[in-house]
């Protein structure tokens, strides 16, 4: 199952560095404490812009190579200007990209060469929730479905096992499937 010597596989994942990091953080658990940050600013109407520049971890501050911006808005059917994806769609993007990063990492760890990985994410939502029409309807998704189409040097079962493993180690999968304490306050 575990293939530690797979020299021919190149998925662009530096697996040796990850193995090293795992060992280092096992030995020094305090360094494993990370904090992720995002700064969001209202633009106009339902449009906002989130900027992500820095985070902390390994006992120090870090900056991304450059600042990243995420534009969010609502579509024209909601009488908005549609200057960006909706926030729930950005959650779907986060889930898919987290799982996909996991697929690449696990595949590399198992010596599986990937040729193409495509995910389609669908999530249903009953607008009666956020519009306050029906108190029994939740605001969020009723369910999320992710469908992977993967071309790789492995059997269907092995690919399924890689996809399963990526869910087991995914931060965003955990975030959307388990409750998290959230505190919102005025500065």
């Amino acid at each position, binding site marked *: 199952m575990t293939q*530690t010597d797979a020299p021919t596989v190149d998925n662009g994942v530096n697996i040796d560095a990850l193995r090293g990091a795992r060992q280092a953080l096992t030995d020094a658990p305090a360094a494993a404490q990370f904090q992720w940050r995002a700064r969001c600013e209202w633009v106009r109407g339902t449009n906002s812009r989130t900027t992500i520049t820095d985070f902390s971890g390994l006992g120090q501050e870090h900056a991304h190579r450059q600042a990243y911006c995420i534009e969010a808005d609502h579509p024209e059917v909601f009488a908005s200007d549609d200057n960006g994806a909706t926030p729930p769609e950005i959650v779907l993007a986060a889930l898919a990209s987290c799982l996909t990063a996991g697929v690449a990492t696990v595949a590399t760890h198992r010596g599986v060469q990937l040729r193409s990985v495509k995910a389609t994410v669908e999530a249903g939502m009953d607008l009666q929730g956020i519009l306050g029409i029906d108190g029994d309807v939740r605001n969020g998704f009723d369910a999320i479905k992710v469908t992977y189409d993967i071309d790789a040097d492995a059997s269907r079962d092995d690919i399924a*096992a890689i996809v399963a493993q990526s*869910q*087991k180690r995914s931060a965003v999968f955990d975030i959307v499937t*388990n409750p998290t304490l959230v505190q919102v306050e005025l500065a």
Partner: protein
Amino acid sequence: MRVPVVIVGAGPAGLAMSHHLVTAGIDHVVLERGDLAHSWRTERWDSLRLLTPSWMNALPGHGYRGGDPHGFMTAQETVAFLEAYRRRFEPPVLTGVTVAAVRRTADGFAVIADAGTWQCDVVVAATGASSEPRVPALRAELPTRIDQLTALDYRRPAQLDPDGEILVVGASASGVQIASELQRSGRAVTIAVGEHVRLPRSYRERDVYWWLDAIGQLDERYDEVDDIDRARRHASVQLVGTNEHSDLDLNALGAQGVRCVGRLVGISGRTAQCSGALASLVANADLKQARLLHRIDEFVTSNGLEGEVGPPRPAQPTVVPAPPTSLDLAAFSTVVWATGYRPTYPWLDAAAFDHRHRVVHDGGVARMPGLYVLGLPFMRRRRSNLIAGFGRDAGDLAAHVRAYLGDVARTRAGARIGVVSRVEWPSEQAVARAANDVLDRT
């Protein structure tokens, strides 16, 4: 009192160790807080049977001789089996002796018990892997009107509040067995399912443990797996030993009418929150089971056993109806925590533990010289926590004890003539392997 070795606990593991020491001519005592096999008499539910078939439950010099080798012993039958073992080789067991403390001294250990103090060079902790239930902290957040009990407290359905629904938390052997029994007694049962290991009771007309034994899986060594820490944390299997040899996976529970929900992850007021990741865990358990069955099929083919065993039969996929992610606790009267067990050694010198209060050991040989543990999951091999595993582990450790005692004797003599030696076996090769696994956790 001075004796070379003190074994704490006269269950199957302690008796197996005693047998090896008797054979090696090493003087020792076995201290037991209650009667022989105390926890088997007092800490098991009424219907409990061993997970392993009786033919398999051999201890050194003592095998099953009853009329149903393919059956599964009850707790009482296990006690009788161990009493027969005791009669057979008359180990130096002292019952009704409770150990209060084991302390390092300048010259070995002091074992302080209510019946006296023993000075010894070696202590073997054989008190089992299930001394204490492991219950998540959120138990404190349950409404107080809900009764809570653990798998160690559970005895029979009639013990529970007769009204209301029951939530069983945990879907390993204890959880699935208790959920099934409560549902059969006419109760409405919901089971919260986290990571789990699905296994068929039998495959190709042989018991699954026959296969695990045959393909060598039970003999995989602790220093040969990628991540022993992780392997030791594995949940126990979804299995039950019954006369019908039936499966007890989530499909079987579902057919009985038990409702499956995701792992219990939070309690907010009167609402219990369940993880939405159940489908992922179920798919993972199915994949792992399919991999094991495939390994068995390959074993059959490569050993030409097709004529002796049944045909291959692919497992049915687990079907769990879309589970709710929250439960209204108002409907429930009782929560049964079947969330695992942990060994505890409240009497043991604090220096023996790591920061998570686990005894630091390499294959049962503790970091603290002269201390040994026995009967823990995957301690030396995958079978280490089965009755069928205690014999070999005890044999390995007895060999180490013998070398250690020889070393202690030489050191004592050397204190006079200037010779010092050290026991070097077994090595620490397991440590080097721990780095290997980043993400390979299926």
